[in-house]
Structure formats: structure tokens, C-alpha cells
């Protein structure tokens, strides 16, 4: 919690894990103490809802909630909001992702109200990849507020019934608030502190960047526990299965903030070509087992990038099926 000076303090208080009451399925699962499973669905680069439905069908019954990315890597896709509604229609509880890159505070608050009005129970607050990486690198970016301030915004609208301006929200959005953190980005020493800031701002769950380097993740979790942050926010470790050696090398060398140990690439290289994907899945399942054993980890967030059909297999192999 933040004390009077606006500083993080270790004492429990308002906004802690005990005071939750949204309609979120993820909140229900986490609150029950069950190890949670979320996954991700990247909307298509077109207007066909069937693509979203198909991806959703792979996940139904295997995850507690599904993230819907918001123009990830700055590539134009169907809006997260719309794809969330499509997924809701097939029986999933979507987590709408919202990045600070494309909207100012007016648009963000408007979309939060709209999402809540149509039954979206979860919002994940992120900065967003820089547009340089996407398909419209000549676009202007917004970054009116940052991800921590977006968390504060949702919390303010929900708990205080106030817009950023201080004016009254008539009909509060009842939303379970999430955030992300990258334990593998630099400077490493502030990565737990930054999560503390997000929890203090009002985030109730965090999904981490993909964990490949489990030792480093353990160190980060140790720092998180030392600060008592795991008692204030539910921590879901990010898991990404490697489809190929090429993907592993790309993740290692070209994706900012990604930490892929060389041994993992060597392990994929060490199996026959036709067994690489199987090995990738095996590593993902082992990683789930390893992070599950770390004190303070409340679940996993499986990001099977354009490989949603493999989530069932991973969830089953990790002994996380059926879902509560």
C-alpha cells in the first residue's frame, strides 16, 4: 500500500488481496487459492470473428481467463474490445488489454466504461510496444499517461467513482485490475520495486514476461517476497512454448527484454528435427512445474504465440486440467 507520503509500505491495507469483488472468473479462482491458468488470444488482422471464435474454442475449459492483446507489437489488428466480446460469446472470460500508446486519458476512460458496460470483467494495463516495431512506424504515439497511472485510473473509477478529472462516474466499472512486469529487463534491482508501485497503484494481478531463465525469475521472486508484494498482488508467471529453434533464437536476440538461456536453445538443437516442437512443449511444462514450486507464484499465463491449439496439451501435461 502507499502511505501518506505516497510511498510503498509493507503493511497490509486497503487494496490488499482480501477486498475483491468483481465478476471476474480469474479473481474467483485466485481467491479460492487454486493455481490459476490464463492464456492469450491475438486478434486477427481482419474483421472475421470466426478466427477469434476458433482460437477461443481451443482454450474453452482449459483456462480461467484469456487475455486479448491490444495491437501487440504495434501491428494493427481487430480491437481487443471487440475480440473480447466475441470470446465472451463463446463462454470465455476475457481480459481486455489496454496499452498507453494509442489512446489519451479521454479515450481510455471511455473504453473502460464501455468494456464494463458490456460485461468485460478484467483489464490489463500496459505501456505498449513502441510503434517503431509495428506495421505503422510513421504513426504518432500518445503516451498521455503511463501504465501505472492507467492502473490508478481504473481503480479510481471503480473504487472512488471518480474520473481522472475528479468528476463523478455514474455507474462504476467493476473491473479486476491487472498489470505486467518484466523480471528480466534492466535495471534488475528495481524490477520488484516497480511491481510494488503497480500493486500500490491498485493492480490486483500481474502476468510476467515469458519465463525462460527460471533461476533469474527465482531471484526476482525472492526480492518480491522480501518486500511482501506477493501478499498484495497475485503473481502469474509467463510461459511461452518454443515452436522452433528459429523462434527461440529470435526471442533471444531480437525481442527487447527477453532472456532466453543458451542451454534452452541447445536443448532444442539436441533433438531430431521432428521432435523440436515436442521438446518445446516439454520445456514449457517443466517450466510450469518449476515456477509452481516457487513461493508466491499464484498461477501461470501461457502465451502460445499463434499456437493457441497447443494450450490444452500444456495445461493437461502440467496437471492443471480440469479447471475449477
Amino acid at each position, binding site marked *: 500500500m*502507499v502511505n501518506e507520503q505516497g510511498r510503498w509500505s509493507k503493511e497490509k491495507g486497503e487494496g490488499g488481496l482480501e477486498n475483491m469483488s468483481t465478476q471476474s472468473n480469474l479473481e474467483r479462482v485466485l481467491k479460492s487459492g487454486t493455481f490459476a491458468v490464463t492464456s492469450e488470444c491475438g486478434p486477427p488482422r481482419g474483421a472475421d470473428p470466426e478466427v477469434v471464435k476458433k482460437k477461443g474454442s481451443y482454450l474453452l475449459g482449459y483456462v480461467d481467463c484469456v487475455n486479448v492483446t491490444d495491437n501487440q507489437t504495434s501491428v494493427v489488428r481487430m480491437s481487443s474490445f471487440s475480440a473480447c466480446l466475441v470470446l465472451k460469446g463463446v463462454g470465455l472470460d476475457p481480459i481486455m488489454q489496454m496499452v498507453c500508446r494509442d489512446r489519451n*486519458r479521454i479515450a481510455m476512460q471511455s473504453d473502460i466504461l464501455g468494456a464494463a458496460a458490456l460485461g468485460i470483467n478484467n483489464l490489463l494495463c500496459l505501456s505498449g510496444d513502441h510503434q*517503431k516495431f509495428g506495421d505503422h512506424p510513421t504513426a504518432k504515439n500518445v*503516451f498521455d499517461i503511463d501504465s501505472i*497511472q492507467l492502473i490508478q485510473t481504473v481503480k479510481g473509477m471503480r473504487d472512488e467513482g471518480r474520473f481522472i478529472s475528479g468528476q463523478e462516474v455514474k455507474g462504476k466499472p467493476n473491473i479486476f485490475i491487472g498489470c505486467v512486469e518484466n523480471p528480466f529487463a534492466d535495471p534488475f534491482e528495481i524490477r520488484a520495486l516497480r511491481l510494488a508501485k503497480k500493486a500500490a497503484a491498485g493492480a490486483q494481478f500481474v502476468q510476467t514476461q515469458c519465463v525462460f531463465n527460471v533461476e533469474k525469475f527465482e531471484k526476482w521472486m525472492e526480492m518480491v517476497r522480501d518486500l511482501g508484494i506477493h501478499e498484495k498482488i497475485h503473481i502469474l508467471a509467463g510461459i511461452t512454448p518454443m515452436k522452433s529453434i528459429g523462434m527461440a533464437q529470435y526471442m533471444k536476440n531480437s525481442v*527487447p527484454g527477453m532472456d532466453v538461456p543458451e542451454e534452452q536453445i541447445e536443448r532444442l538443437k539436441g533433438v531430431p528435427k521432428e521432435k523440436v516442437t515436442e521438446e518445446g512443449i516439454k520445456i514449457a511444462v517443466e517450466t510450469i512445474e518449476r515456477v509452481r514450486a516457487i513461493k508466491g507464484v499464484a498461477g501461470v499465463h501461457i502465451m502460445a504465440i499463434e499456437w493457441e491449439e497447443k494450450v490444452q496439451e500444456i495445461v493437461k501435461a502440467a496437471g492443471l486440467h480440469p479447471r475449477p
Partner: protein
Amino acid sequence: MIVANRKPFEEIIEMLKPYSKILLLGCNECVTVCATGGSKEVAVLASEIRLYRQKEGKPVEIGEVTLERNCDPEYVESLKPFIHDYEVVLSMACGCGIQFVGEHYRDRLVLPAVNTTFYGVTEEHGVWTERCQGCGNCILHKTLGICPVTRCAKSIFNGPCGGSQGGKCEVDRDIPCAWHLIVDRYRELNMMDKYLEIQPMKDWSTSRDGGPRKRVREDLKI
């Protein structure tokens, strides 16, 4: 200083196509310091244009003038006796100077020979980097002398984002991560506890977002 880059030669030549009497205007201030639009650069560009146009069989007459400042009426007015001897003005001053000269001589077009880029510093000889965006509400006291509005690619107030690696920004591995620099300063000054303070949302109304800005000092008006 205001830093500018000369436009590509082809773009300049294209703009000058209809004209044969050109006043090439430089500025002795910022664009001289950043080696883009001072008297030296005016002379070089004038020669390049003359040579090119001669080769094309369309020779030009170019007058070369470098004002002390292009953003001050006192100096801009000094163009009055001869500006009408030319069909067009090609300016190597910053965007402010280009517009200001145009405002004073409405019957002459002032064409830009430079792209005005940023407020910056000479980091080393021949290298200029950005430091300020003129947002109108300085927070350098809070971020220990490093501006996240300008130097973070996402202008994040509670950074660093997840793309910071090895002290560099995700946008370009040659750009230092502003928040990495800020965290280094917190550590050096033994102020890490300050890092935990959540920086409030910025009031952008003092920035360009509030519309073009104006400053008036009544006591200085004549």
C-alpha cells in the same frame, strides 16, 4: 540550442525549380552551433545549388546573407533593403526563423532548407542529442536531472518499461534508457526510496497540447 539537419539536396532543388533569383538566408545562432545553417553552410549550399543549376542549363543568382538572429524583428527588418531583389527566400534558420521572416515579408515565400529537429546539446564534437521538449512544466527536480518526457521513447513517468536492456532503449540500442539513467542517479545519491513514489499524471496543457504558447512580460512592453 535548437538542432536542425539540412534537407536532402534533391528536395531543396525540387523546391527551387521555379526560381532563378534566390536569397539564401542563414542564422548565427543555434543552427550555426549545430553546424547546419551558419554562414559556412550557407556558402556551401549556395555553391552546390549554383553548380547543379549551371549543369542543368538553368543558372541561378543567389544572394547569401546570415542574420545575427532570425527570431528577432530587429534583425529580420535588416532584410528590407534587398529582399525584393529576389524571387524567393531559402532559409537555413530553424522553423521559428523561417516562419518569422515569412511573417515580415508577406509577398515573398520563405522555403525551408533544413528540418528542425530538437532542443539539444553538443554531446561531443559532431554529435548532438535531445534533452528537452519544452513541455512547459519541468519535473527535472523529481527525476534527478534526466527528462523522461524527452528521453524516454514512451515518455513514461514511472519507468523503466519492460524493454530496457543493458541500459539501452528498446527503440534503438544506441539510445540510453532514460529510466536506467534516472535509477542510476537515485542509487548514486542514495535516494532509492524516492523511486517508490508514484509520479502523478502530467498536465499537458502547458505543452503544445494546450495550443500554441505565448509568453508576455508586461513590464518589458514598449
